[in-house]
């Protein structure tokens, strides 16, 4: 086995020092009845050559063209990012518990926190969550801690259906109710912007209403590229903002791993879930970074922790940080604008072609087209082209309605072809 280096001599020498005569003996503490007395029933070992054949077969080829978004929009991520992640010092380090030998990871987290807080227009951000959905659930939990006695949150249907499902599971376990009807007394009002249908919400209004009800306002953003063009929730008074960064990490990988984003106001710091990196100085007064405020976390606080999260999505946070850094101020705004322009272009072309557009008004990079049936889409699938996501998967009321994402990756010609195929 190429990953193991023990020669028979090594084993003999080591056993001698240990004072045992066989490896078997090292397991003497495991009662006989607890042993597995047969080999594991798993396929036999493969050499790297055979492994590559197998995995190439399983993977097959990359999809030809996809307009699928719905919470998992891919964006252009420069090749540099994927190659940087292969550096062993990033890839094979653990959580930076020993700051003197983890300044790379720590400084990168500090940069990530700064970027995430800035995107959302809020003061602080954590070192990442698993994904946008669990980040939203954590935000709701946090809101309920901040508003004790109101174990209920408002989550409208315009929030990603899977995010709502995850909240049902997690908040349910915490005995917190979810409502999508206004008028209830709630700890938080959640809104997704751009919403699941690609439309922009009246953020300022929603936040104001939430505050009037003495609820916190929680913003969700499943594609943070939007924040390059639209007002940040923090600037309008939102209390917590969460998001999903997968589109800026490089690979969609069937939807994960991406990275959950979590930002809030400084005043709520002590109730925040997840890891935090903070600036400090070393013994000589030089600037350095450490994990901090762990008194909120499970490994210090145990049953009193703000969350049970331990391992988060650090490497994806690094990818996100690198990508955002590459875009930079001007590039990121341009990215957002191009996304909106592509959706405008699609809507114009679709309209001209006589296709029905379900929602109008200000939008980001997704569009809902109401088709007469599913045939054209199924036909495109035969050509390995994926035109969009049918909404009736979650919204029976929207039959034959296709959610189409158009980002900077698509050419106008590609959009023309799509429209042609759908009409």
């Amino acid at each position, binding site marked *: 086995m190429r990953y193991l280096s023990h020669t028979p001599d090594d084993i003999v020498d080591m056993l001698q020092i240990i004072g045992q005569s066989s490896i078997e003996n090292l397991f003497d503490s495991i009662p006989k009845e607890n042993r597995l007395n047969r080999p594991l029933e*798993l396929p036999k070992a493969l050499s790297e050559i055979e492994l590559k054949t197998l995995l190439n077969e399983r993977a097959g080829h990359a999809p030809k063209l996809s307009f699928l978004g719905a919470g998992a929009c891919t964006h252009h991520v420069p090749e540099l990012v*994927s190659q940087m992640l292969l550096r062993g010092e990033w*890839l094979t380090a653990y959580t930076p518990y020993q700051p003197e030998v983890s300044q790379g990871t720590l400084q990168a987290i500090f940069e990530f926190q700064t970027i995430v807080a800035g995107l959302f227009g809020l003061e602080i951000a954590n070192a990442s969550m*698993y994904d946008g959905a669990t980040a939203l659930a954590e935000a709701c939990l946090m809101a309920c801690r901040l508003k004790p006695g109101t174990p209920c949150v408002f989550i409208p249907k315009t929030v990603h259906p899977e995010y709502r499902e995850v909240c049902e599971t997690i908040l349910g376990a915490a005995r917190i109710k979810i409502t999508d009807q206004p008028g209830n007394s709630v700890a938080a009002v959640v809104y997704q912007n751009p919403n699941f249908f690609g439309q922009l919400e009246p953020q300022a209004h929603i936040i104001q209403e939430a505050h009037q009800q003495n609820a916190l306002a929680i913003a969700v953003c499943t594609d943070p590229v939007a924040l390059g063009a639209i007002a940040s929730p923090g600037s309008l008074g939102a209390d917590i903002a969460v998001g999903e960064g997968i589109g800026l990490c490089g690979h969609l990988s069937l939807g994960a791993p991406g990275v959950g984003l979590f930002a809030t106001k400084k005043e709520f710091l002590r109730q925040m879930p997840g890891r935090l990196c903070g600036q*400090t100085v070393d013994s000589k007064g030089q600037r350095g970074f450490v994990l901090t405020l762990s008194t909120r976390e499970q490994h210090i606080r145990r049953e009193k922790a703000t969350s049970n999260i331990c*391992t988060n999505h650090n490497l994806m946070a690094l990818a996100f940080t*690198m990508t955002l850094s590459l875009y930079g101020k001007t590039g990121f705004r341009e990215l957002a604008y191009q996304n909106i322009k592509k959706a405008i272009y699609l809507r114009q072309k679709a309209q001209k072609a006589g296709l029905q557009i379900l929602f109008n008004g200000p939008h980001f990079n997704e569009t809902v087209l109401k088709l007469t049936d599913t045939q054209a889409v199924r036909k495109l699938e035969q050509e390995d082209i994926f035109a969009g996501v049918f909404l009736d998967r979650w919204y029976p009321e929207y039959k034959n309605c296709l959610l189409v994402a158009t980002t900077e990756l698509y050419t106008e010609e590609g959009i023309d072809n799509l429209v042609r195929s759908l009409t």
Partner: protein
Amino acid sequence: MIGRTNFDFAENLIFERGSPGRTGIDLPQNTMSDSVVDSLLLEHLRPPADKLVLPECSEPEINRHFTRLSRWNFSIDTNTYPLGSCTMKYNPRINEWAARLGGFANLHPYMPESRLQGALELMWDLQNYLAEIGGFKAVSLQPAAGAHGEFTGVMMIQAALKARGETRTKIIVPHSAHGTNPATAAFFGYEIVSVETGSDGLINMAELEAKLDSQCAGIMITNPNTLGLFEKNISEICKRVHDIGGFVYGDGANLNALMGIARPGDFGIDVMHYNLHKTFTTPHGGGGPGCGAVGVSKALEPFLPSPIVAKKQNYCFDYNRPQSIGRVRSFYGNFGMMVRAFTYIRELGPQGLKEASERAVLNANYVKARLKDHYVLPYDTDCLHEVVFTHKHTLDIAKGLIDRGVHPPTVYFPLIVSGALMIEPTETESKEELDLLCEAFIEVSKEDPEKLTSAPFHTALGRLNEAQAARSPILVYQHV
């Protein structure tokens, strides 16, 4: 001694690099005017005052920045990293190749299942492999990490009790458990009932029995436990818990000691999380992403998160699970990590996995044997894949090891050992590396304690002031 100093490059924050107007990206030209967007968005537009806090750097600058930063990390690829409970074994490079294949990396979660057959087959296989390795009936790959698996598992226990019409109030968590265990249980409103560790390093059976009653939802147990010892009463414990109608949660972080040797499911454990980012070589990435798959017994199978992967005509996502606790995250779990773990399991095969566990245990025992005259062994019994020592000056020892090119072990955990030094060498370290590690430990133990309080000396930054960081938190860059 392999630790020394060499050149390094100082590097400021990325926000302190660059200059206004620079960018590291080229996007395609676009013909539509920006004003079209401006007039569509109107009051939705991000106003100039709502600043984008982003750097302004060219690609070469970004590359140099992150290349330099990376060099400040210890990592498995550069040095021995015997962090107890973390299983810092070699992360095969073929895994990275596999996860980046276009036919995996570019899959969208909402592609039709017919387009996802290869991926689904891989997930199906992985579910089954993990089930076989752990001795469980079924597996969900949805949880993103160990703690997330714990959440999922305890929720299934709660659901199973509820399905019986029961609501219980307590859960037993040994004092030696990882922090995620009590944090998870508390989340569900359970009262955490602690049990102590006996002088043999194992759960005190008398105390446990005394605390088991009909209000107990069950127990969260780690086996091998956080001392690296096998809970030899595990069958008995499971039986007792089952007798009072409770369930046993297994924390699978230490599965690396048991592959092909013993199966938690066979002990009677009802649900366990696997850490694919420990036992199954998906890289830890400086803190995730991981994958905290959960395996369950027949009794808990109906409650698994939805969807799971099923094999019917074709491979498919099975959403038709009426008793499911629901969805615990978006999409289907960290698929990228599943590809890596699948690759690893297929490469090692049944015999290779067993050998990996055997060597992991051999390595830990070797370190134990070599260090036991130099460090205090609070529990001097047969250890499995890791060994816990203690020392008067744990933190200083840790920092002194850095200068010798060895990553410190896990410190101050488990809490039951004061000043714990928890060493898990893993199977992929060679005897020579272990000898260097042992020599480093021995050397530090003989070092002048006064001098050690200032260690490390070889790093660009000296010891960091953690108290100051917490006292006046600076969590984001303060723009000037």
